[in-house]
């Protein structure tokens, strides 16, 4: 369970909130998911089952680069680039541009979120001004802090960069992706491979997953709710790379990050009906390699729990090379990124 520093009573309260978070909240997003799936039908040419086999060196190990705050703080992308690591590089959509800027061309980029206006910004958005108006998502989220100060000029640079290098990366795209994102991926000539996210129990009558599968016959992957977890599922169950290094999988915040800047701060106040018990919604961890303190909120704790639950089905080895955060579990040794690269080169 990691090094929880809060008293036991607090943990129980915290876990009560987490236990109430619904795993299946499809009522709000169900229509959008199905609509995107139907609209994307015309572009489905290849599925993740059509991926060519990896060469032996690439199959031996992979590094997954998620967009957690440690990726930037630990300078992980530049270190991977400078190491001349020869294994597979898998990135989430939120960390793709950062890789290109460091001169690192990923083998695979995963995208999952169906949001109609936000996700396209990860690959440069032609409608940047329109989509940025009245939306503080990128200024509030902590994943890729560089995107907090994202400007129209920077967006233009991203478009140019992605247009130049997109064709060198395989995009692993969920059928629920918004059309504007799919349009950008096509425009930048990504090699696209499709899949369905498992959104409910396909054995149940009326299952949305089963409906999606019925129309597109795409294999369905568990996601744990985050694209980083989906990237691990992809590496483990589709690519079957023997050893996987996880970078930027923080599932939390550094202790010096004010709780006001956590992603669901206002929702938690609303849920509790005030700020009085708010501090009980955060649990602190000590990261074993550095002894630095990190904390998690119910949302990240829930995503982390989902990841660890799915990890029970792991058939390959994984190492936490984030060098920070709250993913502390005996099954996933915390090692430095340099050690992982050294032992897998």
């Amino acid at each position, binding site marked *: 369970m990691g090094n929880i520093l809060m008293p036991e009573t607090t943990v129980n309260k915290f876990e009560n*909130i987490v236990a*109430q*978070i*619904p*795993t*299946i*909240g*499809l009522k*709000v*997003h169900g229509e959008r*998911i199905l609509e995107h799936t139907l609209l994307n039908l015309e572009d489905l040419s290849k599925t993740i*089952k059509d991926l060519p086999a990896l060469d032996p060196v690439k199959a031996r190990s992979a590094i997954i680069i998620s967009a957690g705050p440690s990726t930037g703080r630990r300078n992980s992308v530049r270190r991977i680039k400078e190491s001349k690591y020869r294994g597979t590089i898998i990135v989430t959509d939120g960390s793709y541009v950062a890789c290109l800027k460091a001169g690192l061309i990923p083998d695979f980029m995963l995208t*999952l979120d*169906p949001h109609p206006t936000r996700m396209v910004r990860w690959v440069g958005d032609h409608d940047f001004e329109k989509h940025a108006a009245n939306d503080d998502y990128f200024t509030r989220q902590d994943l890729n802090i560089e995107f907090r100060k994202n400007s129209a000029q920077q967006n233009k640079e991203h478009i140019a960069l992605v247009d130049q290098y997109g064709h060198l990366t395989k995009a692993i795209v969920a059928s*629920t992706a918004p059309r504007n994102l799919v349009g950008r991926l096509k425009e930048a000539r990504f090699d696209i491979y499709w899949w369905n*996210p*498992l*959104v*409910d*129990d*396909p*054995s149940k009558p009326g299952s949305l*997953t089963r409906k999606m*599968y019925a129309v597109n*016959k795409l*294999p*369905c*992957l*568990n*996601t*744990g*709710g*985050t694209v980083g977890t989906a990237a691990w*599922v992809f590496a*483990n*169950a*589709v690519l079957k790379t023997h050893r996987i290094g996880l970078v930027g999988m923080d599932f939390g915040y550094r202790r010096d990050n004010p709780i006001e800047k956590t992603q*669901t701060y206002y*929702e*938690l106040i*609303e*849920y509790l009906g005030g700020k009085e018990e708010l501090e009980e919604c955060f649990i602190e961890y000590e990261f074993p390699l550095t002894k630095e303190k990190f904390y998690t909120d*119910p*949302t990240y704790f*829930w*995503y982390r729990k*989902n990841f660890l*639950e*799915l990890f029970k*089905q792991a058939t390959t080895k994984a190492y936490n090379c984030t060098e920070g955060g709250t993913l502390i579990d005996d099954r996933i040794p915390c090692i430095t990124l340099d050690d992982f690269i050294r032992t897998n080169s």
Partner: protein
Amino acid sequence: MAEELLRGNFEVKNPVRDKMKAEEVSVRKELKKRVLASLGGSMVYMERNSLIWDGEHSDARDDS
């Protein structure tokens, strides 16, 4: 004081139902549900025994 004076000194034809209270509770419940949903994700299903489901092929494998 006013409550004491008014209580029980006449019969009403129809029973009084505390409609507002019931509505308020249901709105609060709904809001709480929405907040909880926004704390989590909308696209997560965690109960399968396999990381991948591939239609009938998966069903066949699960049965074995």
